[in-house]
């Protein structure tokens, strides 16, 4: 296994679906952080076969768990402090997300009024369906 130096303080996102780490990097805007970020792709996993892992060395309150829950609530979030895992966070699907994704419906009011926040609401928890708050268009990945 490839070894990336241990974290003193930060978080490890484990069990990311293989190939999805760059999407998460983008959505969490990790590129804007002035800290050490390690992305491990296609790591071996007994549970998943292959998985991605992201390690970020930064204060733990900088992670937007709502957004991460929306992207993939099966990801394990390990909170690291003093080089130890102090907490494993369980992610949930957020009831509402704001300005994470944009409505693609050309008939939606957000398509012409640029100042409006793009809000999506969880309408079906089992099917993990999010719909635009304004036009109710289903979000498709």
């Amino acid at each position, binding site marked *: 296994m490839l070894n990336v130096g241990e974290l003193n303080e930060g978080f490890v996102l484990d069990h990311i679906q293989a190939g999805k780490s760059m999407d998460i990097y983008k959505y969490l805007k990790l590129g804007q952080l002035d800290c050490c970020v390690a992305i491990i792709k296609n790591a071996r996993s007994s549970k998943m076969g292959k998985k991605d892992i992201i390690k970020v060395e930064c204060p733990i309150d900088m992670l937007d768990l709502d957004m991460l829950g929306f992207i993939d609530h099966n990801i394990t979030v390990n909170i690291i402090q003093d080089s130890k895992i102090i907490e494993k966070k369980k992610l949930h699907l957020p009831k509402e997300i704001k300005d994470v994704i944009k409505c693609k*419906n050309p*008939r*939606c*009011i*957000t*398509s*012409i*009024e640029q*100042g*409006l926040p793009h809000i999506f609401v969880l*309408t*079906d928890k089992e099917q993990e*369906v999010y*719909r*635009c*708050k*304004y*036009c*109710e*268009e*289903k979000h498709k990945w």
Partner: protein
Amino acid sequence: MRHLISPLDFTVEELDTLMDLASDIEAHPEKYAHACAGKKLATLFYEPSTRTRLSHEAAMLNLGGQVLGFSSADSSSAAKGESVADTIRMISCYADICAIRHPKEGAPLVAAMHASIPVINAGDGGHQHPTQTLTDLLTIRSLKGRLSDLTIGLCGDLKFGRTVHSLIHALSRYTGIRFVLISPEELRLPSYVRDDVLKKKGIPYEEVASLDDAMPKLDILYMTRVQKERFFNEEDYVRMKDFYILDNEKMKAAKPDMLVLHPLPRVNEIAVEVDSDPRAAYFRQVQYGVYIRMALILTLLEVKVC
């Protein structure tokens, strides 16, 4: 302060109260003739409309109130690029209540989020048209005597027909409702209504293409127009527009007490010869539209009439 953005904004009990009020207005219009004296309704119509705008205006005038507004985006400050949020903040200073129609879906919700007066959604793109739904419910209740145990055929443009979406949402809350969805393949009901309302609530429905086959089972036939303005492509519109035409021949297969409703305007989908059939209820539906909007204005303005 309340708004009407979706037909589900009111509970079934609240709808009953609203329809009781509308029925009382129908029976005793003189009682309500000055109920809204000194109040103003603003009609913000960013999209052309005859019926809905005039129906709201007639409702307010019947209540002794006054109306102001615009009837197209060109004649409003939207043409200068003003946002819905800014327009509604301004209108809130001029009027006591407003009705908004907008071609973009969700615009009335944006208005409600920024308004300090009650907002009525008078239609937003292909999305919702709740006051038409209230009209439809009142018409069915008044002429059929119930809103439960009905087989309802929805025919025509079920994809972009906002009246259909709103009506399905509203009727899905009553017991014993069955839907027959009659449309060409390209204009079938969107998944957000079929999956999230019908399938989720276990409401029986069937999707068919033939109006003739569906006719004998229907208690209500709700015809819709294929709307030219919803198509990006003229060719598709021309192909779809005359897919269904209800005429006297087709009416022969219908139950003797079936009702034909239509949100109007019609183009070719109901032949003029059907107008004289006693089951044609679409012009009576227009009158019920005024009564229910009067009841809605009174309710949202919290005006009580003894």
